């Protein structure tokens, strides 16, 4: 496997707004942020686009680049796949259909993902049963859905890359199939159809634009829910003409549930599964999987955001209020899958779900040392750490004493930056 470096990331810190407090640096799970001598925070290490810094910043100085709704004007035909998180943003009395119809006024082709999500559920079940029976594969299988988790695995748990279900995600499938389908309808090339998902996730942009060699499965830009919130909100109470469009009619409780932790595995039949959400807990479970502790589990749904995608950094409504609305919708739409099992099975046999994604480990600088050099570095680190105060204050511009020691050893900062070590 090749290691990739210099990957693009989309989280940006506005230097004019940042006052150099340490909150984003402390919140970063990969310790990628430093406050440098210029008094502002910088992303220097491996960013997995989790959005923790965006949430932590009291000044609103941190954003994630999205295409924004203006990008749509540049393309003639576009598909806008909608994350079910959107349905929970306008209170419990606003129905998904109202939201989708309102969006169809502004956007070309709005697509609810329930149908693809149900197909994906069936295929996941088939994959697991087939591979358990043949006693091959790596257990448990990890859901490929959360782009932040995928990056976290690539960066800190590369041995688990082979656990990730080798399927295209429902969004990737919507991209691929939607482009083919609409290009036929409009008589243009599939590449001329652009895909802009509406999402609560700051990582959608990166995850789908850089890791897929398959051009058709890529998104062209993400639109944050916060960016179109007002547009829909102002429009939503007008009377809507019902639309005969099938995707609007396909909405299902199973698909809506995917917005919350546990929603994906809820649609898996007869599979021993676990749903875990939140960065800290996710990391703990990845350690456990690496130590072989969860071999009896078939499938693990991991979501970096607490409570799942409803906790995404671009969501407007708080996750707990959103869950209330979603649970009401699930009761209303029912929790049975309506997709045709034989059809899903046929697609599975044809390899329709297979991904062209080839996950590669991400690395930062330290791992380029030889083993003897790295052991020596670790010894020096331990020695230096023993002399540090372990107050974990962050005044030195590093998130904690251990990271500070690493930066000193690697020559990125000097010991006198620690206020306790000054003469």
């Amino acid at each position, binding site marked *: 496997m090749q290691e990739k470096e210099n990957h693009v990331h989309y989280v940006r810190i506005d230097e004019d707004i940042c006052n150099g407090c340490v909150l984003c640096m402390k919140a970063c799970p990969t310790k990628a942020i430093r406050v440098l001598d210029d008094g502002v925070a910088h992303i220097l290490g491996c960013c997995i686009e989790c959005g923790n810094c965006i949430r932590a910043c009291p000044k609103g100085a941190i954003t994630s680049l999205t295409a924004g709704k203006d990008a749509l004007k540049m393309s003639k035909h576009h598909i806008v796949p909608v994350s079910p998180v959107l349905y929970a943003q306008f209170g419990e009395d606003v129905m998904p259909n109202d939201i989708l119809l309102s969006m169809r006024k502004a956007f070309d082709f709005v697509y609810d993902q329930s149908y693809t999500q149900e197909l994906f559920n069936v295929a996941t079940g088939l994959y697991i049963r087939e591979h358990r029976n043949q006693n091959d594969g790596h257990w448990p299988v990890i859901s490929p859905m959360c782009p932040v988790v995928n990056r976290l695995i690539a960066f800190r748990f590369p*041995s688990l890359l082979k656990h990730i279900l080798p399927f295209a995600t429902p969004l990737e499938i919507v991209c691929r199939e939607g482009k083919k389908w609409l290009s036929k309808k409009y008589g243009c090339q599939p590449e001329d159809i652009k895909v802009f998902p509406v999402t609560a996730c700051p990582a959608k942009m990166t995850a789908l634009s850089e890791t897929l060699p398959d051009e058709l499965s890529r998104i062209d830009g993400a639109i944050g829910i916060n960016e179109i919130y007002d547009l829909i909100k102002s429009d939503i109470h007008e009377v809507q003409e019902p639309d005969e469009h099938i995707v609007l009619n396909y909405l299902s409780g199973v698909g809506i549930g995917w917005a919350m932790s546990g929603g994906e595995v809820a649609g898996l039949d007869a599979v021993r599964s676990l749903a875990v959400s939140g960065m800290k807990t996710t990391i703990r479970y990845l350690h456990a999987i*690496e*130590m072989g*502790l969860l071999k009896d589990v078939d499938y693990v749904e991991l979501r970096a955001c607490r409570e799942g995608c409803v906790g995404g950094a671009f969501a407007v409504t708080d996750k707990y209020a959103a869950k209330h609305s979603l649970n009401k919708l699930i009761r209303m739409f029912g929790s049975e899958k309506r997709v045709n099992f034989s059809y899903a099975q046929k697609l599975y046999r044809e390899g329709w779900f297979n991904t062209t994604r080839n996950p590669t480990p991400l690395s930062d600088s330290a791992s380029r040392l030889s083993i003897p050099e*790295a052991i020596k570095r*670790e010894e020096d680190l331990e020695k230096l750490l023993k002399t540090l105060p372990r107050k974990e204050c962050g005044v030195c511009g590093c998130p904690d004493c251990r990271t500070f020691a690493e930066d000193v050893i690697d020559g990125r900062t000097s010991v006198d930056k620690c206020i306790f070590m000054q003469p």
Partner: protein
Amino acid sequence: MKKEYEIKARDFVRAGKAAIGVQNILKSIGFEQDIIRRVSICAYESEMNVVMHGADGSLLLGVENKEIVLEVRDSGEGIEDIELALKEGYSTASEEHRDMGFGAGMGLPNMKKHSNVFEISSQKGNGTYLRMVFWVNGNRE
């Protein structure tokens, strides 16, 4: 390099921290995934043994170019019949431990399987000492 972790008996909340610490250090040095996996499985199993059966103890990680060594000691009740304890499926775990998902009798056999050298010494009433060696690159040179 050497690094020592304290293990508190019956502290189920912090249990696993030593194994994760070992795992992180080995990753940071950049060993092969397979040896990291084997060492961390053994670190976890032995840590849990101390937490469940031992009085307080310690786990010592030693890293050299050619080998990784884990030494685990505790001052617990010790093992009466080591040969029996090494048999797969043999377990003295209590009902409580089984309820927590442990006690399948795979702990020591698992450690033996995943390490290149496995030494155990124990006397009833005098604690247990475990030493496991893992050869970097698979064989001893």
